[in-house]
């Protein structure tokens, strides 16, 4: 499908989903399979056997503290190896089921290493990486919870981060537009997804010191005109995460698409954006 929307930088050839045993990963897998089916793309499941965990388990004092119970249990390499094998097997089973359900080709890649490094090593610019947001990470605020954020902001491909609860399908797809340099690719991806699912597209226009909202709207409008996309506009008082969170709570949407270069992502103080909103987010590199 070589239309103008499928320019090399927006084309999605492969959907990669990072699998683990969490519920969020299952939601992510389902969304990934649906996207793959819609885009006629390949579905690649990625299961990473975390070496940090394996090393930790091999130490003589290796212990595990239960998430909910707080009980301290001994940990052994054999146990950990067995668990990882089981999880990989479970991931294969889930992937096969999702592939069958959506009639898409799928592959499972199991590798051993650190999650972030291994994930980044696998992705290519024409991929879409789908991650489940780890609920626990939000609650505890632990640094490894920001793994998702780190991957989203450093991956060479688009990254979609999903919550555990699916959003109502009738809501529009939202895209944050902060200018043609960062926003055009986000707009293109958003238009593509809106067209795929036959949904309305709302462009969020944040006010900033550099560009006036009217100007932004004008640019987005001319982009839409060029690409024959139907869009609505919504102006925001700023691009800060709290403003965005507030605006999204009021509007409600199905999906938020924004550029990695966006103020809301780049400003380190605002990294919590990804944790704060329940909406699925697609970060465009």
């Amino acid at each position, binding site marked *: 499908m070589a239309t103008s929307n499928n320019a090399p930088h927006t084309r999605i050839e492969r959907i990669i989903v990072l699998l683990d045993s969490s519920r969020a990963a299952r939601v992510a897998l389902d969304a990934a399979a649906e996207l793959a089916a819609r885009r006629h793309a390949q579905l690649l499941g990625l299961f990473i056997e*975390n070496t940090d965990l394996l090393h930790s388990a091999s130490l003589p004092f*290796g212990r595990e*503290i239960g*998430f*909910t119970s707080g009980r301290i249990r001994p940990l052994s390499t054999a146990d950990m190896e067995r668990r990882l094998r089981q999880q990989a097997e479970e991931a294969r089973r889930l992937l096969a089921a999702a592939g069958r359900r959506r009639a898409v080709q799928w592959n499972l890649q199991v590798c051993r290493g650190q999650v972030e490094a291994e994930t980044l090593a696998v992705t290519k610019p024409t991929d879409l990486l789908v991650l489940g947001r780890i609920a626990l990470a939000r*609650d505890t*605020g632990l640094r*490894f919870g920001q793994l998702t954020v780190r991957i989203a902001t450093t991956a060479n491909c688009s990254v979609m981060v999903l919550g555990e609860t699916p959003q109502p399908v009738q809501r529009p797809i939202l895209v944050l537009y902060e200018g043609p340099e960062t926003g055009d690719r986000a707009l293109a991806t958003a238009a593509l997804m809106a067209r795929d699912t036959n949904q309305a597209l709302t462009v969020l226009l944040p006010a900033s010191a550099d560009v006036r909202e009217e100007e932004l709207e004008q640019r987005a409008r001319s982009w839409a005109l060029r690409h024959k996309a139907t869009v609505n506009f919504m102006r925001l008082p700023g691009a800060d995460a709290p403003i965005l969170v507030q605006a999204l709570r009021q509007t409600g949407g199905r999906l938020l698409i924004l550029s990695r270069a966006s103020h809301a992502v780049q400003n380190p103080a605002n990294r919590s954006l990804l944790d704060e909103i329940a909406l699925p987010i697609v970060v465009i590199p």
Partner: protein
Amino acid sequence: MVIPKPLNPEELYRRCDPESFDFETTAELEPFNEIVGQNRALETLKFGTGINSEGYNLFVLGPPGIGKHEVVEKFLRARAADEPTPSDWVYINNFANPHKPRLVELSAGRGERFREELEQLVQELRSAIPATFESEEYQSRLHDLQQEFGQRQQEAFREIQEEADKHDIALIQSQSGFTFAPKRDGEVLRLESYRALPEEERQEFERTIEQLQERLQQVIQQMPRWRKETQNRINELNEEMAMFAVGHLLDEFRTNYQDCPRILEHLDAIQKDVIENVGAFVSQDNHNRAAEQLLNRYLANVLIDNAQQQGAPVIYDDMPTHQHLIGRIEHHVQQGALLTDFRLIRPGVLHQANGGYLILDVRKLLMQPFAWESLKRALYSNQISTESLEQLYSLMSTVSLEPEPVPLNLKVVLLGERLLYYLLSAFDPDFLELFKVQADFEEDVERSAESTQHYARLIGTMARQENLLALDTSGVARVIEHGSRLADDSERLTTHNRAIFDLLREAHYWASSAGSDRVSGQHVQQAIDHQIYRASRVREGMERAIHRGTIMIDTEGEALGRVNGLSVIQLGGYAFGRPTRITATARLGRGNMVDIEREAKLGGNIHSKGVMILSNFLAARYAQDRPLSLSASLAFEQSYGLVDGDSASVAEFCALISVLANIPLKQSFAVTGSMNQHGQVQAVGGVNEKIEGFFDICKKQRHYGGHGVLLPAANIPHLMLRHDVVEAVRDERFHIYPVSRVDEALALLTDTEAGERGSDGQYPVDSVNHRVEQRLRELAELARRAPGGNDERAEQRKDNGDE
């Protein structure tokens, strides 16, 4: 003995003189709202409704069509209008025990207002609660609380994380928990690298990790407590906001119902419920079913609304089933399950009539399964417990309710036939306990000048009530005459309203058909004739059969042992008379009288009694000093159905005397009347029909001249004969003879003197009685001489030495 003279035409029919009325048509008459001739029943109704003790419910007795219902309803309505209007009854949810809805009593008219106000309240809550809980204030306070909880957790974890970082220790998340491990350059140390560390460093790592594990454990184990604390604070917030949302609405409500503690309790319960269920109200779903279900529980079900009621209610139920009486609990189906709540309780007539009067037809009541028992139960307990039959008898077990019983205070008025009253009195021990007052309806009233005038006004009122043409004086007179005929008594008038109503409607029809602007005598007569004509198929068939000789009835000549008796056949609402041939035979025998009807099991007990009386009279009169050596038989010829009544006993006696005296009887006469053991003739029923029946046969035979009927003199007041019969009597073509003694009947039928015993104790020679006595003496003599007779048996006893 004087032979009776035939009756004058004037004695056969008591006319009502149209001239005696001082109006032209009934349209001029004032409505007559009194009830004619039912003083006893009305007095009883007054007593029964006035007495305020338990069990003084009423049973109104009388045959169908007499107008019991109209009279009772009219009476009760008049009485109820001056009585206080009963309360409204409302069911509300019982929050503590939802399957036992609570009852609220409110003064008449307040129930519906209460329901509307509750609905209004719910409507306000429907928007006020979400508005409050979706408000910026609530949301940000809630967010703060949750944030605080999150921060508290994050803080605790961060401290551990920082502590771990400080000691070069990694915190790693596994599938089901956390683990700590020493790290170098961002990577966890492998086992061999770790072992390569100096002992001291390793010990330091292990100690630190152990401390971190314990701290993390403490943090994790504290989390439920923190969560609970947060939840408590959220609850407090909810309560505060809910109070803000509903408090002022409820306070306004409370001021209106200070006098009703139950309603105040209900409002408190609503307030508590809102606070407990805030979560359901603030759901994002547009069609918030959970919230609707909660709100529905705050509403009221007005079981009885007396807002429009003036005075006490008077309710008649024409289908008194168990459910109609005590109400029902409906269910609705939800996902295949039958569900109900307090809003589905429906009232019964006991609820509707509570505080007033309930009229029921006892026959209908008894025909409905369990209805009678349910009514008695309610009256005994003085309360209405709404329970379905399946629940009562454990036939079906589904979610149902036990509504709080409604206190019952009413008078039940049962309407029914006398037989049902007597049967219930005899067989149901509860009946007389609960229905202590019996109001017995008169079936007729005296026909006096005054009552005739009342009757005329009543007829006018009925015509007006039914939108019928007014009656002129001849029409009224004819209706009154027919009223006497219906009462079977020229001195009385029927009180059967239905029959009079029907006659008026039909007379109206004939008058309208004839284009008349009023109903006159001829229209009434036409209506009566047509009523008879419509019902006459069977009668005409019988007349035809007699005329053709299929049924043998002679109306001419004389015959031995044969007489025309008269019987009445009742077919539905129509009765007619017909002659029946009664025959007798006699021969030598031992004094036994064979009643063939009885032997064939076609005779009723009263008929048998009549035959026994006549046989004993026979024996006592003619065979006082010797055995009655006679074997006689009596039969109703060509009768194939059950015969009962003693009205043929005079005829039977005459037939028997004819055969004994060997004197033929005139067939131009028919005889009716019963007799006693002294030979007196007693009154019988249905004389009008009987005379008309015989008259019709004679008329059909086309040779009537000296024909007639013998009837008991005591029946003369009952005569209200048809116009053509009266005219035939006037023309001396037909005669009606009143007889007081059987001898008079014998004389008339035989044209021979019956005879009275002279001073010598003997009957005059050639008199009927003399010939009977002679014949019986002969038979006795024959019996004595016959083998096995009295003489022979005496000889045998002598031989055996029995003396």
